[in-house]
């Protein structure tokens, strides 16, 4: 009984310590972003890596998400005889929810894992120590360009996701199932408000911060050897995805 309590205590303490370390990591990253943001070229390189190179996977996910929304939405709405609302259903689900969340999850899988692996390998091969030994701030070269790039690119990727998804829904709803094309876009225009778009962009911006923060952190404190990096990468992807979904709930309830 006593040892159970002891274990719970130990676990809680290590959890608290980890959370503290993560918070310090984030605050220090933000401090470095403002005090010495690094070279513009490094940021562009990260934008290219996180953003441009994710385009294809975002395009693919978005079109099929839009298409399936068109399909599901059509059959549901038809029960109430209001297929005309399809446009606004598809657009609202994408803009408010699926666009930001799915694009964040795709970026986590594609770029987040790569970020953790890259930084983790630099950690275990002493390259981060080498930077520190040369009195060069590792956060400036490794962390802050990635965080900045993620914050910039995720809203853009999310917007692309929304547009592509809306057209995916259009193809299925209008071209295949015969919804009136005028109604599709007309209802969309009436249904979507500025607040919806705004909340979607705020979401994806914060997801960008969450993903890059967690993935950089996990890589920076990767354990020993190849196994340490693989464990860090796995836990970075899992933790980022879960945090994105949890944060999404809370943010939605606030932005409602």
């Amino acid at each position, binding site marked *: 009984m006593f040892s159970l309590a002891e274990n719970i205590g130990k676990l809680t303490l290590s959890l608290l310590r980890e959370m503290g370390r993560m918070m310090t990591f984030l605050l220090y990253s933000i401090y470095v972003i403002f005090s010495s943001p690094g070279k513009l070229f490094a940021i562009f390189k990260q934008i290219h890596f996180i953003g441009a190179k994710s385009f294809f996977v975002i395009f693919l996910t978005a079109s099929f998400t839009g298409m399936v929304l068109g399909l599901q939405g059509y059959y549901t709405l038809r029960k109430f005889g209001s297929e005309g609302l399809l446009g606004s259903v598809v657009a609202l689900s994408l803009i408010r929810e699926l666009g930001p969340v799915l694009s964040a999850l795709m970026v986590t899988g594609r770029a987040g894992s790569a970020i953790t692996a890259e930084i983790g*390998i*630099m950690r275990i*091969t*002493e*390259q981060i*120590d*080498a930077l*520190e*030994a*040369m*009195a*060069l*701030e590792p956060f400036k070269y490794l962390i802050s360009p990635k965080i900045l790039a993620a914050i910039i690119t995720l809203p853009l990727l999310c917007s692309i996701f929304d547009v592509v998804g809306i057209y995916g829904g259009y193809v299925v709803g209008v071209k295949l199932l015969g919804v009136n094309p005028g109604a599709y876009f007309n209802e969309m225009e009436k249904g979507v408000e500025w607040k919806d778009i705004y909340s979607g962009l705020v979401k994806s911006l914060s997801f960008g911060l969450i993903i890059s923060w967690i993935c950089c952190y996990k890589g920076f404190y990767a354990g020993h050897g190849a196994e340490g990096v693989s464990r860090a990468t796995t836990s970075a992807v899992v933790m980022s995805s879960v945090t994105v979904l949890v944060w999404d709930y809370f943010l939605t309830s606030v932005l409602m």
Partner: protein
Amino acid sequence: MGKGINLIKLVDVSKAFGPQVVLDHLDMEVPERAITAIIGPSGEGKSVLLKHMIGLLTPDSGRVLVDGENITVMGRGELNRVREKFGMLFQNAALFDSMTVFENVAFPLQEKTNLSRGEIRDRVHDALENVGLRGIDEKYPDELSGGMKKRVALARALLLDPKIILFDEPTTGLDPIISRAINRLIRDVHDRFDFTGVIVTHEVPEIFDLCDNVAMLYKGKILMAGPPEDFRSTDDPLVKQFILGELEGPLRLI
């Protein structure tokens, strides 16, 4: 030469990783402009000791003084100012593996100085030539042999004229000829640039020809420190056994 001053001083330093005590109330001094070798059995924490000198690790207790300043209480900014005095050669060379050899050596210059491209190119080539390397500018670290990597890392460490250079096992894992070449290189470079050197190694007695002072780390403390001659003529059974590499004796490693 003013070898009397101690540039680095560790006072009552302790460090543990979990239950394993690595440094146990250790005291050590590194005299200026001399080469000090830290010897001792593998896994005794020699690299840990070295990393304390440059603030890559912070002690659980005790002080580390560099040029009279206690670096254990410094923030990152202040610590970076002290680190400007250092160059460090890591055990695995720690070259940036996504950069070419040229970019690796040029990196600290690009980041810290306002030199033009041409000047940087000249200085990088000088530095590489100093360590006997030519024509490998465009190669990536994984295309180099272990000895070449260490020489590139040495060139990178030397480039900013550091006052202190820390060598973490500069010759481990290299063949005897390359090892000797690197040792001689360190000596030559030292004679030319007059830095304070600290070398972690377990290559005894070869290292005695290279260094001015030796300190032996054992069970978290400095067991013995002094010039190489003292080590050669010592009566301490532990030290003697380690230097001669004998299996029988008070030192039990397996």
